[in-house]
């Protein structure tokens, strides 16, 4: 882990999970990582001329073009004779699962040597908490209101991990800023792989989730502990799961700490619990089958 500070002086909100995800990954990767960040929270807070906050080579890409710009940078650096470097992308959930999914799919398909990190704060937080396809069921956002009979997002969170894994990617994993050692280990694992890798790190946004900035780490831990955000890894197509959820009964208390879920009915909460259970069962089944 690099002792220096690769990402500092930025303007992120207090308790920003995304800023932590960027900082820890760059510390794990060291100075020969090139960071590519699309339009979004981290580019908005880190690249305000003349206040430029990356110690590494870093660049903002277009919103849709994170992965393809990574491809170009890697090719350009190779053309200049550079070796032993890694291009790492940091895109939010909207930049990954919505507008950037085509470029991401293309880069994985090409087998480009890169680490793509999705810091998943479950919505378009930079523009004021609108819904993305990674916003979970039930969450109130500014485009899925909870008022006048409406009860927040009625759509399920897109399963990006398996979508990415279906490409046959060498390495894909979920992580959480609540478990930083696990996250850093996964980043290091990705760095050792030649070819594409994908890490989706849950990065709470206290501003958008309606929680105190001091609760970021707790929330990120609880999401894992109650089984809502299972830690998983695909290696060479084989799925392995992290430890079993420590306490599935934490789920309701976990959601209750976030204002975005304050409106949920008992029925909504049951649906979220059932969804979690189904997802976990399916993943356990797949992981077990692949162990045989």
């Amino acid at each position, binding site marked *: 882990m690099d002792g220096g500070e690769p990402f500092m002086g930025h303007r992120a909100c207090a308790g920003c999970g995304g800023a932590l995800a960027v900082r820890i990954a760059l510390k794990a990767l060291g100075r020969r990582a090139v960071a590519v960040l699309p339009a979004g929270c981290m580019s908005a807070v880190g690249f305000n001329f003349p206040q430029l906050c990356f110690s590494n080579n*870093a660049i*903002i*890409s277009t919103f849709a073009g994170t992965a393809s710009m990574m491809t170009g940078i890697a090719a*350009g650096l190779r053309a200049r004779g550079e070796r032993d470097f890694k291009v790492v992308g940091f895109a939010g959930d909207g930049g990954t699962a919505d507008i950037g999914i085509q470029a991401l799919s*293309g880069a994985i398909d090409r087998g480009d040597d890169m680490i793509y990190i999705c810091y998943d704060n479950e919505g378009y937080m930079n523009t004021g908490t609108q819904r993305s396809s990674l916003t979970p069921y039930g969450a109130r956002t500014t485009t899925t209101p909870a008022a006048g009979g409406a009860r927040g997002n009625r759509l399920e969170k897109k399963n990006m991990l398996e979508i990415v894994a279906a490409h046959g990617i060498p390495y894909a994993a979920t992580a959480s800023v609540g478990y930083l050692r696990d996250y850093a280990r996964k980043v290091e694992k990705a760095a050792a792989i030649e070819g594409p890798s994908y890490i989706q790190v849950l990065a709470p946004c206290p501003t958008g989730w309606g929680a105190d900035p001091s609760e970021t780490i707790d929330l990120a831990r609880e999401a894992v502990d109650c089984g809502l955000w299972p830690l998983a890894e695909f290696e060479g197509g084989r799925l392995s799961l992290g430890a079993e959820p420590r306490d599935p009964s934490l789920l309701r208390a976990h959601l209750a700490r976030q204002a975005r879920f304050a409106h949920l009915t008992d029925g909504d909460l049951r649906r979220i619990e059932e969804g979690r259970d189904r997802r976990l069962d399916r993943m356990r089944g797949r992981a077990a089958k692949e162990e045989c």
Partner: protein
Amino acid sequence: MREGLRARGHIHGGGEVTRAFVSGNEALALGVRLAAPKVVCAYPITPQTTVVERLSEMVADGSLNAEFIYAESEHSAMSCAIGASAAGARAFTATSSQGLLYMAECLPYAAGGRFPIVMMNANRSVALPWNIYGDQRDSISQLDCGWIQAYAQDAQEALDLALMSYRIAERPDVSTPFMINLDGFSLTHACEAVDVPSPEQARGFLPPYEPEDAMDFGRPRNMGFSAGPEHNAFFKYREHLGILRARDAAAEAEEEFGRAFGRRYTGLVEEYMCGDADFVLITLGSVAGACRDAADRMRGEGVRAGVLRIRYMRPFPSAEIAEAVSGAEAVAVLEKDVSFGGTGTVFANVNSALYSAGARIPSSNYIGGLGGAPVSEGDACEIFRRMASGATGVRFIGMGGA
């Protein structure tokens, strides 16, 4: 390179220059190979396809030492080219029409980042209605995106522009991306004999790209940043000055090109019998040939006709146009685009140039060639006759006035 293409060529001039009978696209690809980009990324679209097909073959057979990247869209093709350029590598891509519009977000991005990427655009109609044939509405719609825009009239010029474009774009005080436009089918797919310089000659003309401000592990850089109201105009002003300097850079490149290869180019415009012309037809692209034939015919009928071909739409040759038509009684602009609800865009630019120069010459506008409709020598003669009769205003060829 395809066998047939090789077999058709023959060597003359001491084995240094190859003569090849090739399409405009193939000529462009030969020129790109001589320019030796390190990263070629593209997405196929008619009528650009044969450019990237030839380049992929050149990479495969080792005659072009570059990475060929299969972009999954035009937006990604340009995004990838920007990344390569940010890393300090010479980059090339090619597109057309819907593809150009799909990547449109990335065009001002490349220009604002001062990345000297070269892109070939096969001029093609824009949907709706769908149409794969040539007009210039695609590139003309992108005049404001900060790219140098050149329009070739034949295959030789396409090849030569591929070489000269990098030299112009990469000059440090220019640092501006460069779009080479070829008329779809009438130029991209028509075969002509071209002279192909040797790689040694090309290297002498265009040294490798070694930028000082690319990504660097010894001195890391934060690029593509935000600049608020207090700094934004600073960058935009510099960008504007950069593209304006392409005028001088083109002159310098053409001077050197003439010395190296014996072919002379004439800067942002090319005059044909404009010196004593009473009536000057201003146009761009491959239709200039028919216009020159028409001028010849009109001269035979006693009308002092001339043709001014715009070679570069950006930077716009305002002074050159005003100078070239200073003795004319009237000018007309023939173009393959229209700004709906306005006039032809080239016409608007020309009028602005004339007005700014204090020239008060009657001007008229002819919109033709849309969706690949042929524009004949006869059509151009008709424009000269209408000019001579004092006609002004905007007219769609074969349709009516607007």
